[in-house]
Each structure stands twice: as structure tokens, then as C-alpha cells.
């Protein structure tokens, strides 16, 4: 295999990894703060993508034609709408179930994910069919031998990277981030220290959901298509990636996301007879990793009260 082809595969893998990492970071944030797995995260991504699509349609109707304006508007509307949705989910579904057994929250959020997915399918006009997401980013390409480098892919990658860096800076360098980390460490003590628990939780969920919306729009721009089932798959992969990397650890989530994408790309390259096996391969590896390291590669530091 020549360098150009290899570079193409690597580029594909990086893009996939970025999208998985964005979803995984969301899972990790939620878990860190509230000890919950919000399974509906993937479907929030879908709703975000569809919100972005509707924004685009609305803008087209209003006559706004500048693609940069459209991209900005789509992102802003999708992210803020999903931030709101995330906060609502936290307030009305997750927090009331905080004291219930952990499995109940898992199931409740799984079902919520189904509700979101089916709502998009049933209530969005012609929701069951894939929708063509517009090409808003410049499509100039540079051909380096066999490797076709597209400007929009580069922009998307850099955008995703910027979001991850921003989240990292927010969580580690700001006062609000300090509050988030405090709540993640010990809820009662954080409350005693005067941190408004509810507000921090709502903000964290909003942040994670906005990241999901960004990933959804990115997905739409990359594949030029969105459909109601896109979130389920991305959600499970993001969740597996977060778990593999160790829940509660942002670096672990990012590592997990890129690792999963690498697994899939390697699977696709190494098994040329059926690249469809790559999903089977990737999930099988996840199960194996869970058997070997039950709490992920970067193990979460917990102590269990008996």
C-alpha cells in the first residue's frame, strides 16, 4: 500500500476519531458529575443535527445565502438548543432518579434516547428518510498523489479539536470548571462549600449536549447526510470509547474515541474481504478490553462504601 493510500486511511480515521471523541467527552462529563450514564446522548446528537438542518432550511427561506453565515448560525442554534434540551433532561429525568438504583437511570435514559429517535422519525416531516445536509464548507481539494485532502475535512477536524480544547480549558482552568470538578469528586462537600449543586449539574449537562450537537452538525457536514438512526450507533460507540478510556477522565474519553476509530480503520484495512466486519471487530475488542480491565484503560478511582 503506498503512502497516499495510507494517508487517506489515516485521515479517515482521524475524522471518525474526532467525532467519537466529542461524543465520548460528553459521556465522561455526565458521569463525572452525577455518576450517571446518560444513554440518550447519542440521540441528542441526532436531534442537534436535525435542528441544525432545520435552521439551514429556515435561513434558506429567509434568503441568507452566505455559507459562512449559514455554518455559524446552524452551529449556534443547534448547540444552544441542545444545551437547553440537555439541561431539561437533567432537571426532569436524571435528577429525580438520582437516588434510584443506577440501573434505573440507565434504563430511563436508554428509553429517552428511543423516545427522541422515534420522535424525530415520526414527527419530523419525512423523518424516516435520510436528509441531504448541505455542503456549507468550501470543497477545494488538494491531491497529494493518491491522497485527496479536502479543505472541509481539515476545517471540521480543527473545529472539533478547538471544541475539545475549549472544554478542557473550561473544566481545568476556570472557576466554573473547578466547581464541576468539585461536584464530581464529592457532592456533599461541594454543597457544603457553597457550590450550587443543581446549577452546576444543569450546566454540565448543557455543555455536554452542546458538544454532542456540534458533533452532529460535524457529522452532517462530513457525510452530507443525516438520518434519524445516526445517533444510536454514535452513542454506543462514544459510550464504549468513554468506557474503554475510563469514565470520568476527559483524556481517557479522547483516547478512547481515537482508539475506537483506529480499531475500525485497522479492521477495514486488515480485513479487505469485508470491511463491514470492522464494526464486529471493534465491538469484539471492546468486550475483550472490558474483560481484561473492567473499569477501562485509565481506571476510575473509586472507593465503594460497603
Amino acid at each position: 500500500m503506498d503512502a497516499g493510500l495510507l494517508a487517506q486511511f489515516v485521515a479517515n480515521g482521524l475524522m471518525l476519531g474526532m467525532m467519537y471523541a466529542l461524543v465520548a467527552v460528553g459521556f465522561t462529563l455526565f458521569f463525572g458529575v452525577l455518576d450517571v450514564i446518560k444513554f440518550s446522548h447519542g440521540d441528542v446528537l441526532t436531534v442537534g443535527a436535525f435542528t441544525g438542518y432545520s435552521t439551514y432550511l429556515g435561513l434558506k427561506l429567509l434568503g441568507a445565502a452566505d455559507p459562512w453565515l449559514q455554518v455559524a448560525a446552524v452551529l449556534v442554534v443547534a448547540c444552544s438548543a441542545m444545551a437547553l434540551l440537555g439541561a431539561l433532561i437533567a432537571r426532569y429525568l436524571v435528577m429525580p432518579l438520582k437516588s434510584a438504583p443506577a440501573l434505573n437511570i440507565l434504563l430511563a435514559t436508554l428509553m429517552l434516547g428511543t423516545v427522541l429517535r422515534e420522535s424525530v422519525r415520526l414527527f419530523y416531516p419525512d423523518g424516516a428518510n435520510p436528509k441531504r445536509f448541505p455542503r456549507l464548507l468550501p470543497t477545494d481539494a488538494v491531491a497529494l498523489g493518491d491522497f485527496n485532502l479536502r479543505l472541509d475535512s481539515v476545517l471540521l477536524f480543527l473545529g472539533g479539536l478547538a471544541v475539545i480544547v475549549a472544554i478542557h480549558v473550561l473544566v481545568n482552568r476556570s472557576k466554573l470548571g473547578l466547581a464541576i470538578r468539585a461536584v464530581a469528586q464529592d457532592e456533599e462537600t461541594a454543597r457544603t462549600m457553597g457550590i450550587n449543586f443543581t446549577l452546576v449539574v444543569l450546566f454540565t449537562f448543557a455543555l455536554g449536549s452542546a458538544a454532542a450537537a456540534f458533533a452532529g452538525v460535524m457529522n452532517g457536514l462530513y457525510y452530507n447526510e443525516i438520518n434519524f438512526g445516526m445517533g444510536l450507533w454514535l452513542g454506543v460507540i462514544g459510550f464504549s470509547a468513554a468506557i474503554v478510556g475510563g469514565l470520568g477522565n476527559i483524556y481517557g474519553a479522547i483516547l478512547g474515541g481515537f482508539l475506537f476509530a483506529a480499531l475500525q480503520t485497522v479492521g477495514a484495512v486488515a480485513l479487505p474481504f469485508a470491511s463491514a466486519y470492522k464494526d464486529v471487530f471493534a465491538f469484539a475488542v471492546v468486550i475483550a478490553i472490558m474483560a481484561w480491565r473492567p473499569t477501562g484503560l485509565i481506571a476510575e478511582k473509586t472507593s465503594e462504601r460497603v
Partner: protein
Amino acid sequence: MKKLLGALLASALALGLAAGGAQAAKKTVKVVFIGPLTGGVSANGIGGRNSADLAVRLRNADPKAKYHYEMVVLDDECKPNVGVQVATKAASDPSIIAGATHYCSAVAIGTVDTYHKFGLPVIVWGAVLPDITYGNDYKEIHRVNGTMINQNDVNAKFSTGQGYKTFAVIHDTTDYGKGHLKYFSEYVAKYGGKIIGTFGVTADQQDFNAELTQIKSLNPDAIYFGGLTPIGVRIRSQMDKLGIKAQFIGTSGIVSDAFIQGLGPLAEGTLAFREGAPVDKLPGGKFFTAKYAEAGYPEGPEAYGAFAFAAMNLILDTIERVGPNRNKVTAALEHVKNVDSIVGPISFDDHGQNTVAAITKYVAQDGKWVVWEDSEYASGKRKLAK
């Protein structure tokens, strides 16, 4: 409480009798329509449903009709197991006499046993896999549209004639895609072309970068796609992403407005083939288009609407002739020879297959599927890829 119950029962009884009385005029006969009403190919399914519904409506408006017809509509979601489920539901209902069934070949091939088991005569209106009629000896299965054998013959001849010698084949892993692969390989070898790579993909695959990257390194003249619209749209747009300049050639599975809508300007110059003449060149084409427009359906009839109409019409004609009895209808359908319909004379051979000689070549031009001979590509004003 008892009085209330008694009153309710009495009123229910009265309502039931009244409703029954109103129907006493003409006996109601039920027929069924099965097609993919949700999912990626729903446009074709809904088009077929509207067309079959048109046939039933026109028949009910006809005062000379002996019966009043009710069309039961079932959705097979283009999935074999759902198809078998709804087929069982329809076929096990003794009040349903006959049906016009299936656009997706993968579903149609799975349900043939079900119809035979329960003895429901059906006419396929959109599925092109030959095995549906030729793979079994069931008297219940018939088909008005053609099979993919002729389609691939014409495809191979035309494509090699246009100068494309090396082909990469992407096909879906259902029997539909595999059937296309089989027949195309046969014919392309006959006309001097060569297949340099074959890639099987799942019907709902999202990411084709792996396959397309390998295809790019193989550098074929053209990419032949044996599959349906949803993944056709994805493959074509990801081809563009990777900078693959080969010609994209499809089958009847992508001859739908949904394909062009999904791709926008990228669809330009795609080749595709379909059995049957284009609607306006069919014997009953103008009649069908006029009546369809008059009925005011929000969606268009799509590529196979005319066949669905013809299938349902044939069913209704047969029931009018021999009465609402499954066995009699099956027996009557065995002897269909040169029966007039909007798609031309229908004759079922010993396997229930109608011969449709004409294959139409399409090219996507300016956001529409245009017949090749009428297009600017044929006249030389525009050029195909490579």
C-alpha cells in the same frame, strides 16, 4: 350501571345493523397492497401505493363493477422479516382475495413461501430479482414488471459501447445486489469489459471510505452500483469526497426522484437502466398520468407506479370475472395471455412472469432522469465522465 350497559349494547347493535345494511348493496371484496412505505425507498413504495389505490378508486367509481373493493395497505419496510410478517398477516386473513406486492427484491424472495403456504395469489409490481418467479413452481406468484436479466444485458452492452472497459462493482449483500452482480458479470464479460474489483456492502452502511479508497487505487473507468437509492446517494457523494472521477452507473434501484434530490448537482451524468418504456411512451401512459394527476396525490408515482396500477387492475379484472375466491383467481391468472393494460399486453409464462422487452436507458440531467435518447449526452452536447 346495568341500565347504562344495556343502553350501550343496544345502541352498538343498532349502529352495527345500520352499517351492515348500507353495505348490502354491493359485496365488499378486500385486496391488499404491500410495499415499503417507510424507510429509504419509501418514495417508490408510496408511489406504488397511490397507483394501486388509483386503480381501486377508478374501479369503485365504475357503476358496471360487480363488487365494491377495499384495499388494505401494509408496510414491509423493505426488510425481509417485516415483509414475511405482513405477508403472513395478509395471507392468513381469509377475507383478502389477492394482492399487489413488493418493490424490494429482498423482501419479495422471502415472502414467496408465505403466499404459497396460505394460497394467496399475488402479482409483484416492482421487484426485479428473477428467482422470485423462476426460483419456484408456486402457482400463486406472478409479476408484471421485468427481471434484472435484460436490464444488465443492455447495461453491459451500452456501457462497454460508451468506452468503459474496466469496472469496479459495489453491490449490497441482499439477494438483489448479488443478483445484479451475477448478471452484470456475465454480460460484461460477453461484451469485452472487465470487472477489476467487487465490494459487498450492507444495505444501511454509512461510511464507504474503506471501499472507495481501495477502488481509487484500482482506478476503474466506471463504478457499477447494484443496490438501492439510500446507499447509492451515500456512495456517490463520498466518491466525490475522495476525488474519484469514474463514471457512476446504477440499476433500476436508483431510478427515483429521491436519488437526485439526495445528491443535488452531484447526480448529474449518472447512468441508470430500467425495464419498461418511460411512462409517457407506454400504451396507457397518458391515461395513467392524467388520472393520477386528477386524483391529486401529494407524491408522484415514481418509477414503478404504472406497474403497480397495472398489477392491481389485472387483479380487479380477474376478480370481476371469476368472483372473490382465491383458488379461482389463481387458476384464472395462470391463463393470462395478451391481456391489455397500461404497460402493454401482459402474458404470464409458465412461471407467472410477464415479458417486458423494452429496457429504458436513463441519464440524470439537470435534476431529472431523462431518457438517454432524448438527452443532451446522446446528442453530444454534454459529455459523460472520462
